[in-house]
């Protein structure tokens, strides 16, 4: 196990280096920083003598319309009770999350198709080590980009006197944990299907289903749609990172520390379980395309 981990770390270091010398990561990071800066600066422009009024800035008029229209005005006011930083952090990280997870699935499938993975596992590496390396690479880049993004968000907030609070710290932790679960899904999809396009389609499909279930459960929809969503969620929510995210935020909102810790732990357990399933699958199917 220790040897496998060492190999995984070596492969991970190599993959992280390759990602850092290619332009994609930087372009995406710049995009994320631009989104977070715009959200923070836009918030400051939406404040008048009586407080936060989304109607004062075009960006926040749009955000308010979308969020309030989908989830309700109470949800919107709760989301911005502490300021724009938690929302800014979560929303601006989404492009990076999509980039890292999709490129990992793509790369795994591509290298598998080209026989590169097969070549690697002739050496000291095994398929699980390669899978673990891909996951660790994503986790490392995720932490790196979240750190950069948090620093930028805090700096943008400091310029306009917008302060971080407990919700910001919680959002940072929950986004990091949920990202690990998404990367684990990416790794699992890569092992389940041998071609790039099918693995990508499966991964995107799963994430879309989770997103729809989440929106269906939380959004202001008609009773029948909510009932369908409720029934579907009853079966699928236990494997959805978004469900555990909502548990985390609900526990924090009600100041239930034990429940919050439990929900965070469940998110980590979900990631570990997905990786374990991926390990079992790749052990059975091998790495040959």
């Amino acid at each position, binding site marked *: 196990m220790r040897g496998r981990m060492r190999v995984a770390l070596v492969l991970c270091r190599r993959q992280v280096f390759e990602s*850092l*010398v290619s*332009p994609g*990561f*930087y*372009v995406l*990071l*710049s995009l994320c*920083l*631009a989104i977070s*800066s715009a959200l923070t*600066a836009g*918030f*400051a*422009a939406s*404040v*008048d*003598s*009586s*407080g*936060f009024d989304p109607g004062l800035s075009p960006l926040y008029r749009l955000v308010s319309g979308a969020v309030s229209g989908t*989830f*309700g005005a*109470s*949800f919107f*006011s*709760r989301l911005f*009770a*502490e*300021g724009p930083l938690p929302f800014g952090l979560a929303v601006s990280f989404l492009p990076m999350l999509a980039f890292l997870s999709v490129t990992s699935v793509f790369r795994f499938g591509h290298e598998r198709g080209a026989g590169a993975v097969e070549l690697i596992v002739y050496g000291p590496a095994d398929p699980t080590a390669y899978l673990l390396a891909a996951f660790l690479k994503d986790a490392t880049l995720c932490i790196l980009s979240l750190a*950069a993004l948090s620093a*930028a968000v805090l*700096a*943008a907030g*400091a*310029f*306009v*006197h*917008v*302060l971080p*609070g*407990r919700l910001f710290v919680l959002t940072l932790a929950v986004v990091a944990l949920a990202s690990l679960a998404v990367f684990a899904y990416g790794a699992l999809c890569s092992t389940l299907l041998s071609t790039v396009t099918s693995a990508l389609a499966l991964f995107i499909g799963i994430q879309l289903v989770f997103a729809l279930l989440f929106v269906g*459960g*939380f*959004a*202001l929809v008609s009773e029948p749609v*909510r009932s369908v969503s409720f029934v579907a969620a009853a079966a699928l929510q236990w494997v959805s990172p978004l469900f555990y995210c*909502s548990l985390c935020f609900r526990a924090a*909102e*009600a100041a239930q520390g034990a429940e919050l810790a439990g929900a965070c732990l469940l998110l980590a357990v979900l990631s570990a379980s997905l990786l374990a399933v991926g390990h079992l699958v790749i052990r059975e199917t091998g790495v040959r395309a």
Partner: protein
Amino acid sequence: MRRAARALLALAAFAAAGSPLFADVPVRTEQVIYTLVAFNGKDYSPTFAPESSDTVYVLANTDNFLSVRKTFVYWWPPEGRWQTEASVFNELEPGILEVRRGSGEPRLFELQRYTYFNVNGEYEQNWKVLVGDAADAEVRRAQEIARAYLQAGEEYERQHEAYLAELRDLSGRVEKLKSLGRDWSMLKARMDSLPAPVQPRPPRDYVVPPSPVQGAFVVNLPVGRYRVRLLDHDARVLEGSEKWIVSHAARRINGVGYEVIPGDKWTRPSESRELDSVLYVSGAADLYVSPFFEQEFNDLQYARTTDNGARGNPRIYSWSRIQQVPHAVLLLQDAAGARHRLTEEPYFVQQTRGAGLGYTIVPFTGTGDQEGSDANLKAFRLPVRDAVSESGGMTLKATDDSGKYLPGSDRRIVVVRPGRGTAALVIIVLAPLAVMAAVVIARSRLYSRNRETERRAG
């Protein structure tokens, strides 16, 4: 072909000409509806549940007035909601209301005559409900008070007219004496000493007078989901009367929110309801705040308690204002760490003199320009304009009259500085691209050096 085209043209012309004849007139249908006057934690709100709504929402352990009626109902597209046309047809259905929880024993409610009203108190929460003869007596009492006030008003008008007439008469006589060059000081003294009639004060017995006595089932239920239907006296179920009642309660109580009145927009107050939240302001004006107790309800259930057709989110909870915190004291800590004890003071809104619009909020003294007026607002003044240059903001918390800290009353007040640091933000946003450029250059140099080495070696 030409004939077909002509027929189509004629059809189009007919449709165009006929369209005003078939303009959208809402179709009214006779429906059995539940009307509800529901207690919402601070007052009573009327609403109704049409046939399309299968659930009525009430607050647990409070008196709510439910009645079953037959009336005309129509869908009103501009507001996207059902409306009743009760002025044409509005028939109260008699019978017994059967309310059953699960498979338990049903509770039966008889129609009662009721009224509800809010008696005058220092703060807002003084609602009373009376049924039967007591309701009739209370409404009569309110009518007598109103009648007495009207009579006093009429008497005042008469006295005022007589007073003005006497003043005019005396004034005329003074003018006459003046023109004749005779002494008019006696008349002047009489004019000055003439007592002006005192305008009667409006009665202060009620904040909200008793509602007209009506018939309804006074329903008070513990938390739960109940099946409800109306039975006639032969125990037959009235068709269309079967619905659900959801009786819900607050998840958290005694939260503290703040009504926030900016000094430059005192007619547009906002509310800070989220516990321990941050209140961001521009600092253009001082704030006048007033703490209130609030309770946290399920968003959808509470919204539908006050309006059965409202939208709400069943997955989240939201705070609702209940009543002002009585005799509160606010503790303010400024960015420098200095602590201030704030008390509630009356303020007067003074219109700016001259043609320009505007006003200033000044302490209410009841003298000078303010004589004969009441204070416009009672609030705690927060000197936000003094904190414009401070980045840390101020912290605020409330205590009750005994000095006990009120949990959840903490707020941070921060004055934002929009537009600052734009250049720095651009640099931050572009920094990854700069790193990328450096990496690409370094990589290409490395490759070209390697190629050079290989070329030399080869």
